[in-house]
């Protein structure tokens, strides 16, 4: 039919053909990426509808109708057109000191602040490779956990603070940083033990790793809070925070060991043999040849374990320690602010998201930087 129509044109009267479909520019991009097929068009329209029904109401709630200063919930809701129309961020602001320091004595808050600053200073040499005098910086980073432990707990000339007064962001960071800084060396040792050719050492490491990986962290925390005191010599009083720190570290190091084992297995036998032929001892060969390569391969896994550990620190709320989530959850019971669950959960979620997302971005950056292969 089409053919006949074309044949009917008299020469010279042929209408102009349509210009070809654009293959560049915004319109072409939209056509290619959003409306390339019927299914894609439906998906795009559905997504647009989804965004439209989520984002504007959320922005209204979180920003345009929100209240930032008030003494309690009633006062907060009185300022809105109708109760609970917007977020009551005044809650967070009002409790900010509690969320940061827990029940740490207010006149000693400078010690926590100083620790935060020292933590940032300790992170710099670890994260930036080009720092001048990085070697000395790393020594400082290595002893930082002990210095800040002394600063926070007190003793030796400082006023002592009970660890059950620790809480909020401070406790979350204590658990996270301790777990992260101690689980890596222990994990490396366990991984080497699992790879070792001494059967007894190997079996012990395997049993330890598989046991820890086989049970949930919460049961280990229960063990720490209820059962661990039985294992200690009679009369010893072991701080709950310390017991939890040990359990969290052991838990993370078992996972770390498996990640590093993956890296160690990827190193070919030739590398070990090269070390042997140079006359290096086991430790020299591992320190100079094997581990630098194995750790480089396992960076994504190591950082994932860090992130997992950091997120898992929230579990301490179940055994009654008030980390950031624990304090937030406990604040919901306060009659003055009851019913503001969303504000609290979003605040805590945002805190964790920013820190964890930062860690995973850094791992991607590091991976790219260390990727020296072809």
């Amino acid at each position, binding site marked *: 039919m089409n053919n006949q129509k074309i044949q009917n044109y008299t020469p010279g009267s042929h209408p102009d053909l349509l210009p070809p479909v654009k293959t560049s520019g915004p319109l072409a991009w939209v056509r290619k990426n959003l409306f390339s097929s019927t299914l894609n068009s439906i998906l795009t329209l559905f*997504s647009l509808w989804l965004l439209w029904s989520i984002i504007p109401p959320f922005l209204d709630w979180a920003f345009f109708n929100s209240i930032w200063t008030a003494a309690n919930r009633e006062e907060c809701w009185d300022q809105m057109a109708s109760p609970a129309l917007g977020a009551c961020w005044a809650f967070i602001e009002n409790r900010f000191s509690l969320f940061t320091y827990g029940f740490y004595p207010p006149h000693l808050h400078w010690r926590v602040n100083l620790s935060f600053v020292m933590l940032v200073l300790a992170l710099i040499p670890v994260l930036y490779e080009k720092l001048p005098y990085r070697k000395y910086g790393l020594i400082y980073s290595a002893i930082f956990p002990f210095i800040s432990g002394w600063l926070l707990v007190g003793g030796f000339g400082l006023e002592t603070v009970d660890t059950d007064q620790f809480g909020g962001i401070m406790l979350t960071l204590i658990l996270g940083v301790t777990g992260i800084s101690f689980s890596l060396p222990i994990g490396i040792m366990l991984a080497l033990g699992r790879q070792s050719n001494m059967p007894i050492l190997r079996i012990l490491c395997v049993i330890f790793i598989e046991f820890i990986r*086989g049970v949930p962290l919460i049961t280990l925390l229960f063990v720490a809070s209820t059962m661990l005191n*039985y294992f200690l010599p009679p009369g010893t009083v072991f701080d709950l925070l310390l017991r939890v720190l040990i359990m969290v570290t052991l838990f993370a190091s078992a996972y770390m060991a498996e990640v590093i084992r993956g890296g160690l297995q990827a190193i070919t036998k030739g590398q070990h043999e090269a070390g042997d032929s140079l006359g290096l001892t086991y430790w020299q060969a591992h320190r100079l040849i094997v581990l630098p390569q194995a750790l480089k391969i396992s960076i994504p896994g190591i950082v994932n374990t860090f992130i997992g550990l950091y*997120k898992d620190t929230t579990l301490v709320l*179940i055994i009654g320690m008030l980390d950031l989530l624990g304090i937030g959850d406990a604040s919901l019971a306060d009659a003055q602010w009851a019913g503001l669950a969303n504000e609290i959960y979003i605040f805590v979620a945002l805190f964790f998201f920013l820190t964890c997302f930062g860690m995973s971005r850094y791992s991607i950056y590091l991976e790219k930087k260390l990727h020296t292969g072809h």
Partner: protein
Amino acid sequence: MDSPSSKSNQASILLRLWRNQEHRSTIIQIFTIVIMLVFLGMIVRNVDTNMRTIGKEFSFDFLNSPAGYDITFQPFISYSPTDTHTRAGIVGLLNTFLVAISGIIIATILGFTLGILRLSNNWLVSRIVYVFLEFTRNVPILLHILFVYGIFVYTFPVPKKAISISDTVFFSNRGVYTPAPVFEEGFKYVFISILIAILIIFFFIRWSRKVQDTTGKIYPVFYISIAILIGLPLVIFFSAGSPISIEIPALKGFNFKGGTSIKPEYIALTFALSYYTACFIAEIVRGGILAISKGQTEAAHGLGMRPNRTLQLIVIPQALRVIIPPLCSQYLNLTKNSSLAIAIGYMDVVATIGGISLMQTGKEMETMIIVLLIYLCISLFISAFMNWFNRKMALEDR
């Protein structure tokens, strides 16, 4: 011993032993064993003295005494406070399994969907999924559970003002109430017909494979199987006179009666666990599909395979090999994370045996040992399955 020469001689023997790699490793191992034994001995002695000073006894007798607490959620076996701690533990274990299995099913479906959407060539869809995945994965699971539970408790109305969907499904802060099917006499025929349909499908698949091998003719096996599986029971169902009635929940007093009630704790836990795990599964699925090089698809197209069959015969089997091991460990994580039930009061095995039974009997040792052993068994079982599967699927190296 007496003269200095024999002393240095002895030292050199020890030194020589130490310098020999084999002997050195023997010495290290003997030392390790000795240290371990001393350590264990110390622990056992400490436990013994500590227990004796408090006046506790290590025994599992408490398992046979009445538990004395109620479990609000017991969908499988009946339980009352007069039952033993063992039965309470079994109810808890079944609740753990319920959450784990339903969570795994939902997480798998959701995870594969998200993973495929993440790879979609639709820019908007893949961006939205990316933001959702990143946000969910970087927030602790406990927060997700508390958040979803909080939505139920703080946002949903009391049963009297429950949100209803055409008066059959009700949402309230005490749970979701749905109509329950009541099976009548003739329903067993429908059940039997389902079994027969499965049998027919089994033989049909074998026959069609044989036909394909001999003649090359391909039947749409998947659609025919689905048709048999749904069609046959449906025919029997209507010819038996629809032997099923539906009980609709109704508000009586302060709560709903009739129908099925699903507790908010269960919904919150299952939902939070499944979407959290689904985000990790989505990344695994995405990685698995991307790991199959484009050459494989192109080779299949070059052989004249249609896109559907390329996916089915070339891409998916290879991608599964990459996907399944990490997928299994996600299943394991979900099962272990289900122990967070205790935070919102869902009665799983940790909350019953390791929680209330522990508090009531004061048997920290025994209860914790039981809980740890249960989780170890589950983990070992899943890892054994994973290893078996890995061996079965492993590439045949030349």
